[in-house]
C-alpha cells in the first residue's frame, strides 16, 4: 500500500514554519492492549491527548483489529486518510508497521516508543527515515534501583511478577534481579536473599495469578515487584491478606496501590518517563525542532547524576516510604549509575548470573 491521503494537508508544511499547531493533527495507535491498560498504551494516550488539548489540535486514537503488523498498518493508513500527520505509536511491536509505511508517507511524522534498533533491524530497516524517531528506555536501570532499594531496605524474600515477557518487562525484571543481587552482596546476605521470578502471561490480574501470589506470600515472600499494566491487582490482593508489600511500575503507583490495598502496601515504584518523552517530543515538533529527532533512536536513561528528577528512569521521591534505604542513599545510587561505578547489563537473552537465589517459575498463562 502506498496511500498518502494526509499529504494534501501537510504537504506544504515544512518543519521550520512558525505556527505549526494549526497544521498538525495528532493520532495514536495502540498495540495489542487497549488505552486503558494502565501501562504504556494508557500513558502514551494520556500524554498525547493532554498535549493535543493544551495545543488545541485534533487528536484521536486508533485501535487495530488484531495484534498484527497488517492491522497496525491498516490503522496507520486509516489515520492518515483521516488527515492525521503526527502518529504516536507505543511498543516494540510497531517496528514492523513503521518499516512498511514510513518511507511511503514522508510527510507523516511517526513518534515511536520502545522500538529499539534491534526491532527495526528485525523488521528489515537498517536506517530510520527522516520522518521517524524512536525512544527506548533503560528499564533495567529502574528495575535495578527498585531491587537494590528493596534489599537495602531489609527485604530478603522478594518476587518479580512480570506481565507478558516482552523486552521492556524483561529488562525491568533482569535489572531488578541484578539490583537485588548487588545490594545483597554489599550487605553480605546474598545467601539469604531469594527472588521468585514469574511472568503472568498477560497485563492484568486474575484469580490464577492471585492464587500464585498467595502461595508466594504465604510461603514467606515479603515484597513483589508487579511489573506490567494492571497485573499489580493480583499482587496487591494477595499482599493485603498477609500484610505483604508491592513495588509499582512505570509511574508512581503509590496512590493507586495504597488506595486499593491499604496504606504502605506500595514500597516504591520503578518509573520510566514515557509521558515526559511524549510531551517533550511533541512540544519540540510543534516548535519546529523536529530535526533534533529526525531519524534518530534515543535510548533514554540517566541524564543527570545530581538531579535524579531529570532522569528518564527513577524512583519516586515524593512518596518515599523506605526508612533503611533513604532518599540520600538513592541519590548516591543514581550518581553511581550515572558515572558508571555501577553498570547494569541490559541484555534480555538470559537470566543474569547472581549470588542470590533466583527461583524461576513457569509462566502462569
Amino acid at each position: 500500500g502506498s496511500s498518502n491521503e494526509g499529504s494534501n494537508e501537510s504537504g506544504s508544511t515544512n518543519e521550520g514554519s512558525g505556527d505549526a499547531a494549526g497544521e498538525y493533527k495528532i493520532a495514536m495507535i495502540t498495540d495489542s492492549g487497549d488505552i486503558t491498560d494502565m501501562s504504556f498504551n494508557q500513558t502514551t494516550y494520556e500524554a498525547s491527548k493532554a498535549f493535543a488539548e493544551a495545543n488545541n489540535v485534533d487528536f484521536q486514537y486508533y485501535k487495530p483489529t488484531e495484534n498484527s503488523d497488517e492491522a497496525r498498518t491498516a490503522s496507520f493508513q486509516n489515520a492518515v486518510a483521516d488527515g492525521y500527520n503526527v502518529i504516536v505509536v507505543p511498543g516494540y511491536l510497531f517496528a514492523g508497521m513503521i518499516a512498511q509505511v514510513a518511507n511511503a508517507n514522508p510527510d507523516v511524522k511517526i513518534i515511536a516508543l520502545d522500538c529499539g534498533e534491534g526491532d527495526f533491524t528485525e523488521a528489515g530497516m537498517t536506517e530510520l527515515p527522516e520522518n521517524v524517531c524512536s525512544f527506548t528506555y533503560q528499564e533495567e536501570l529502574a528495575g535495578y534501583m527498585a531491587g537494590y532499594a528493596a534489599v537495602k531496605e531489609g527485604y530478603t524474600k522478594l518476587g518479580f511478577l512480570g506481565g507478558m515477557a516482552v523486552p521492556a518487562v524483561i529488562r525491568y525484571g533482569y535489572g531488578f534481579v541484578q539490583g537485588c543481587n548487588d545490594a545483597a552482596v554489599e550487605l553480605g546476605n546474598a545467601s539469604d536473599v531469594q527472588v521468585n521470578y514469574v511472568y503472568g502471561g498477560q497485563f492484568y490480574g486474575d484469580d490464577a495469578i492471585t492464587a500464585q501470589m498467595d502461595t508466594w506470600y504465604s510461603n514467606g515472600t515479603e515484597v513483589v515487584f508487579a511489573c506490567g499494566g494492571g497485573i499489580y491487582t493480583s499482587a496487591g490482593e494477595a499482599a493485603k491478606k498477609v500484610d505483604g508489600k508491592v513495588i509499582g511500575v512505570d509511574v508512581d503507583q503509590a496512590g493507586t496501590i495504597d488506595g486499593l490495598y491499604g496504606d504502605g502496601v506500595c514500597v516504591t515504584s520503578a518509573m520510566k518517563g514515557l509521558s515526559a518523552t511524549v510531551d517533550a517530543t511533541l512540544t519540540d515538533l510543534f516548535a519546529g525542532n523536529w530535526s533534533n529527532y529526525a531519524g534518530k533512536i534515543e535510548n533514554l536513561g540517566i541524564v543527570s547524576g545530581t538531579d535524579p528528577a531529570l532522569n528518564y528512569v527513577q524512583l519516586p521521591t515524593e512518596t518515599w516510604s523506605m526508612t533503611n534505604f533513604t532518599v540520600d542513599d538513592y541519590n548516591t545510587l543514581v550518581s553511581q549509575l550515572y558515572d558508571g561505578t555501577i553498570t547494569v547489563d541490559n541484555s534480555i537473552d538470559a537470566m543474569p548470573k547472581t549470588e542470590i537465589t533466583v527461583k524461576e517459575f513457569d509462566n502462569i498463562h
Partner: protein
Amino acid sequence: MAGLLLLIQYTLIFSAVLILVALGGMFSERSGIINLGLEGIMVFGAMAGAMVMVLLPAGTPKITIIVLTLVAAAISGMISSLLIAVACINFKADQTLVGTAVNMLATAAATVIVKGFNTARSNGSDFSAKLDYIAGHDAFMFSIGGLQLSWFIVVAVVLLVAAIVFFYKTKLALRIRACGEHPQAADSVGINVYAMRYIGVLMSGFLGGLGGIIYIAAANSTWHFDYGVAGAGFLALAVMIFGQWKPERIAWSAVLFALFRSLSNVYMGIGFLHALPISGTVYNMFPYIVSLIVLAFTSKNSRAPKAEGIPYDKGAR
C-alpha cells in the same frame, strides 16, 4: 501447610462457582433447554454485581453490600437468560447456536457497558472495561483460623441444599422435569410447557448470575470485563454432565473439578507437587481430560433429559 490451606480455600471458591452454575445448567436442561450460554450469563451477573459494589458508597454496612450485590447479580443473570428463553422457547431457535451467541454477546456487551459506565462515572477520564470493587470484595470475606472464607461459599451451600430439596420434593420441579423428558405428556395434563421452560431457563439465569459474581469477586477485587470469564461456564457444563443432571452428584463433581483447577494455581506452593515435572497448564487440562475419559465410560447409560434441545411445538405430535 500454607499451600494446603490455600488449596482448600481456592477449591471452596471454585466449587461454589461450579456448583451454582452447573445447577443452573441442570435446571435449564431438565426443562428441555440446552444452555450453552452459561458463560455469558455469568458475565452479565458478574457485571451487575460488580457495578453495585462499585456504586455503593463507602461505609455501607456489609450486610447491605452482600444482599444488594447478590440480588443484582441474580437479576442480571435472569434478564440475560431471557435472551436464551425467548429465542429458544418462543422462536424455536437452535439452542446450541443461541447459547454460543449469548456468550459472544455477553463479553461484547459487558465491555461496551462497563466502558460506558466508567466513562459516565468518571466524567470521561476513565473509560476502561475494568471495575475495582475492593470494598465490596472485603465485605464478603471472613476467616476461620487460617482459612479465608467468604459469604459466597455459604450462599452456595445454602442454595445447593435448597436446590436438592426443590429438585426432589416439589411440585414445580416435577413439572419442570416432565417438560424436559416428554413435553407432550406434560402438555396433555395441562402443564404449560413454555412456562416451565421459562422457569428452568430463568433459574439457570439466577444461579448462573450468582456464579458469575462469585467467580469474579471471591478471589479478585478487580475484573476486566473484556476478558469474559475464561471458560468457567463451559467447565460448569462439564460438571453438570459429570453429575448426571442430579444436584447432589453435581456437588461432588464440582468439588472434584474445583480441586484440579485450584491445583493448577497453587501447586507451586505445595512442596511435593512442585517437585513433580508437571506444569500448571497440565493441571489446567486435567479436568477436561478426566471428564472426557469418565464420560467415555459412563455415556453408554448416561441419561440426558430426553427432550432437551428439541423446541416444543404444540401442534406437532
